[in-house]
């Protein structure tokens, strides 16, 4: 056993004692889809087997070199892969492990000189993989996965596969599989599924650009099939060698781009860096080299797992001031002290009333992404600043003047549980949490609250073949004013400083009303423009009911009036909402004028919480172009607030009339800024990624939708996030 130093006064390194806050920050660059995400250094010794990132193929999915394997990514993780294949093909892939067995993939590819006229192909594709069997490491059962590659894009990379993978000892893993489509093109044989039906003999083709985006049901597992093999040998913990027998004949590349397929054998080498990045080099088909770099990202591992905030104030016995001295609160010193102490904890004090031994305190959380932590910090301050005769605290949370939740905590429980081993769970169980909607308002003298802030902003546009990433960067002046009574005025003016959104020359060829596809015209404006300017009124019309009425300029392209009602009981997994808007399309100059188009649009929405962070939302109604239909959104929400979602919309606009892409769909990523910085803040950053933005299925983008405003409080009432109550 290591001999431990008995002299703790002298540091080994002779450094003078300094503060813990100097703990080094961890923010390497991660330039992916406009988001900056910290790469996560992994302590190799800490990483258990099932959290280890498997090798990825050049398609950015678990695999060997070009061929897939049956492994899954660690649950909930992202893998971002950049691949350069020969001089002519580039791919950027984002894979996300949606659940322990389901992997979703989005890929953007560039194929130089793909078309006969010398044009290049910019291709967006989606994959889905499902792990049917997990490996039994101690027995014979291999992992078994089925995959649909490029099932909804142009179909250039379209392939399906069934693959089994097995570890042999500590350092070798091998896969064997059968592929269709692209993976069934070398050494192929008649589709074994033909014994079921002759339909499996013929594979559907790709008919043209208007066909993009449709799910290729007539291609799945059809046409000839072929076998492939792959072997990885982990030479050292950082170095891996791979060999594979590929079943891809590279037919498209050979016929269109002059690719030479000399051999089905591919060889690769991978090096794993300490930061989790993996660099791969491979020789494919005896003719081309391929270079890949992969970074993984685990949303469950923020840069600072406990946050960088310092310790909370202690639970205290309270002041010796008499209750009577708190009788007249207006302008009293006690009140000012309480307000200041709460403000130091990121909580805005909005009012107080005393009822016997109970203090009812109205607050609004300014700083904490976690509602339970905001309640915990408030309770700590109240225990110190209120007289010791006050034995119960009722903390009533407000947001934009709307009462959300009412939490009752007793002084005795707080004292008993502050250091208790199961203090967080006990505190939740003993807290009495109610809907605050129907409770009397303790806010005696509502103040005018106003603020003005100057912030930077960015706007992005993806996947234009002329320039796949365009971005504007500028300054935003934001103002808000809350005169009380649930009224909330806010607005923002933006001025672009630098950017190239205005360089798009694409004229929309949409045959629908151009409700979204004229983005390039809106981007031509060089002067200041109004991002939004709204008057809103929030109220609680009944128990578990929330309402919003808004009027003004809602977003870059639309303004008008809007109303919404949400029913969201804390004890049910679902919530229901209805929203109705009458809006007109804004002029391109970003001022107050409107174009000659107005529309009545609105949706009924069902929100469902499946538990374990999985959420679904169904919106049915009328969209901006006047089309009717519905949107399905599936979201995985991590406990720290990181959200990853996917959505698609089908409306009565036919696929042909919709144009390229066939229907609206996309991926959303949204995360708290505190996930990156570790500092407590309610600000979020995010991005919606659509393969293409057209006019069908377009929904009004309005701020402060009620579900978003209320679901943190509803979650906290259900016990979510109480691990931070004492933080």
């Amino acid at each position, binding site marked *: 056993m290591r001999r431990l130093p*008995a*002299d*703790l*006064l*002298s540091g080994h390194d002779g*450094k*003078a*004692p300094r*503060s*813990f*806050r100097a*703990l080094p*920050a*961890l*923010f390497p660059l991660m*330039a992916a889809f406009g988001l*900056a995400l910290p790469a996560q250094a992994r*302590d190799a010794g*800490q990483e258990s087997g099932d959290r280890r990132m498997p090798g990825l193929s050049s398609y950015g999915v678990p695999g060997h070199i070009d061929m897939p394997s049956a492994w899954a990514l660690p649950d909930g993780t992202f893998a971002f892969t950049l691949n350069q294949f020969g001089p002519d093909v580039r791919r950027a892939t984002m894979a996300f492990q949606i659940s322990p067995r389901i992997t979703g993939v989005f890929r953007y590819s560039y194929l130089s000189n793909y078309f006969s006229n010398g044009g290049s192909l910019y291709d967006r594709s989606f994959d889905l993989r499902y792990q049917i069997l997990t490996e039994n490491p101690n027995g014979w059962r291999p992992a078994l996965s089925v995959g649909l590659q490029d099932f909804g894009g142009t179909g250039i990379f379209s392939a399906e596969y069934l693959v089994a993978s097995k570890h042999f000892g500590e350092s070798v893993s091998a896969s064997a599989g059968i592929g269709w489509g692209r993976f069934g093109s070398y050494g192929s044989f008649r589709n074994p599924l033909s014994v079921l039906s002759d339909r499996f003999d013929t594979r559907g083709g790709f008919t043209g650009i208007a066909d993009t985006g449709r799910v290729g049901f007539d291609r799945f597992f059809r046409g000839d099939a072929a076998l492939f093999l792959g072997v990885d040998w982990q030479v050292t913990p950082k170095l891996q060698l791979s060999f594979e027998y590929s079943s891809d004949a590279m037919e498209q590349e050979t016929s269109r781009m002059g690719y030479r397929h000399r051999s089905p054998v591919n060889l690769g080498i991978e090096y794993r860096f300490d930061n989790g990045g993996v660099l791969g080099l491979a020789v494919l088909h005896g003719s081309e080299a391929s270079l890949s770099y992969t970074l993984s990202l685990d949303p*469950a*591992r*923020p840069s600072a*797992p*406990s946050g960088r*905030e*310092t*310790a*909370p*104030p*202690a639970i205290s016995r309270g002041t010796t001031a008499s209750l009577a001295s708190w009788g007249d609160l207006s302008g009293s010193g006690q009140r000012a002290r309480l307000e200041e102490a709460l403000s130091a*904890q*990121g909580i805005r004090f909005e009012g107080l009333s005393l009822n016997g031994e109970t203090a009812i305190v109205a607050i609004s959380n*300014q*700083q904490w992404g*976690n509602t339970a932590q905001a309640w915990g910090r408030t309770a700590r301050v109240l225990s110190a600043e209120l007289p010791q005769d006050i034995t119960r605290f009722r903390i009533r949370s407000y947001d934009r003047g709307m009462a959300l939740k009412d939490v009752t905590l007793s002084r005795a429980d707080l004292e008993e549980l502050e*250091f*208790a*081993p*199961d*203090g967080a*769970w006990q505190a939740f169980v003993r807290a009495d949490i109610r809907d605050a909607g129907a409770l009397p308002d303790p806010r005696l003298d509502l103040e005018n609250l106003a603020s003005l802030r100057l*912030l930077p902003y960015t706007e992005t546009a993806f996947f234009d073949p002329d320039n796949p*990433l*365009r*971005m504007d*960067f500028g300054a935003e002046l934001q103002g808000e004013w809350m005169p009380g009574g649930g009224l909330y005025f806010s607005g923002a003016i933006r001025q672009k400083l630098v950017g*190239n959104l205005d*360089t798009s020359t694409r004229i929309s060829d949409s045959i629908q009303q151009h409700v979204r596809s004229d983005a390039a015209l809106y981007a031509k404006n060089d002067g200041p423009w109004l991002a939004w300017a709204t008057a809103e009124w929030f109220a609680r019309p009944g128990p578990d009911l929330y309402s919003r009425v808004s009027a003004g300029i809602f977003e870059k392209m639309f303004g008008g009036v809007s109303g919404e009602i949400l029913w969201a009981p804390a004890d049910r997994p679902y919530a229901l909402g209805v929203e109705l808007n009458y809006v007109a399309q804004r002029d391109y100059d970003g001022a107050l004028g409107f174009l000659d188009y107005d529309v009545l649009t609105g949706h009924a929405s069902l929100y469902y919480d499946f538990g374990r962070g999985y959420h679904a939302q169904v919106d049915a109604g009328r969209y901006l172009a006047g089309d009717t239909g519905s949107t399905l959104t599936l979201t995985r929400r991590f*406990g*720290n607030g990181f959200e990853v979602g996917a959505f698609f919309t089908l409306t009565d606009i036919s696929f042909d009339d919709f144009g390229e892409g066939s229907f609206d769909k996309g991926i959303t990523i949204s995360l708290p*800024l505190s996930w990156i*910085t570790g500092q*407590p*803040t309610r*600000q979020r950053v995010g991005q919606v990624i659509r393969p293409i933005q057209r006019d069908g299925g377009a929904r009004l983008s309005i701020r402060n939708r009620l579900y978003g405003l209320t679901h943190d409080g509803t979650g906290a009432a259900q016990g*979510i996030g109480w*691990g*931070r109550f*004492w*933080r």
Partner: protein
Amino acid sequence: MRRKTTLCLLCAGLLLAGCTGRVAQEMVDRYGGSVPGEAAAPPEGAARLIVRLPKAGQAALLHEAGGRDGVRRWQASDNVQIYTRDGLIIGTRGLGHDLMSSDPGAAAALIAAGRSGQLPRIYRLLDGEDRLEIRSYICDILPANSEKIRIGENEWTMALRVNETCHSPRGALSATHWVKDGRILQSIQTFDPALGPVDILFMP
């Protein structure tokens, strides 16, 4: 030219989104409001605790800022805090994953008495998803020899060394305590392998 512009824009965007700690920190300082809870000056004559984190290469002097029911609350100048009960760390606030609570069971009594024994210990740490991850261990407590330890600038004393080895399916932890007159004088305790050992010395 276009590529250059795109690159510049990307850099600008990354800076905006807070890709470096410094920029992110400045953004938060500017726009995120104050960081709550700076520490007040320590009271005159408050007890002191030296804490070292060998893995992070850091050390700090903490002052006793209060306590209740046998728990002592130690505060660093930047308001990182450590809670101890009978010389064992039962909580941290502002350190790595943070030990939110701990159930040392009868460990403190055994260690202080210099007796050997086997008992369970349970730690609850934040897991990155705002949940508590419960880590439980079976610990063997084994007294060793008396050793001369330094407890002040020029102060040395003889104290009994007590070794603690803890096991769980996830891995092992170890701790060493130096005990005199039924009190832990100094100690090397580990509850989070990512943070590494935490060395503490109660100043006389």
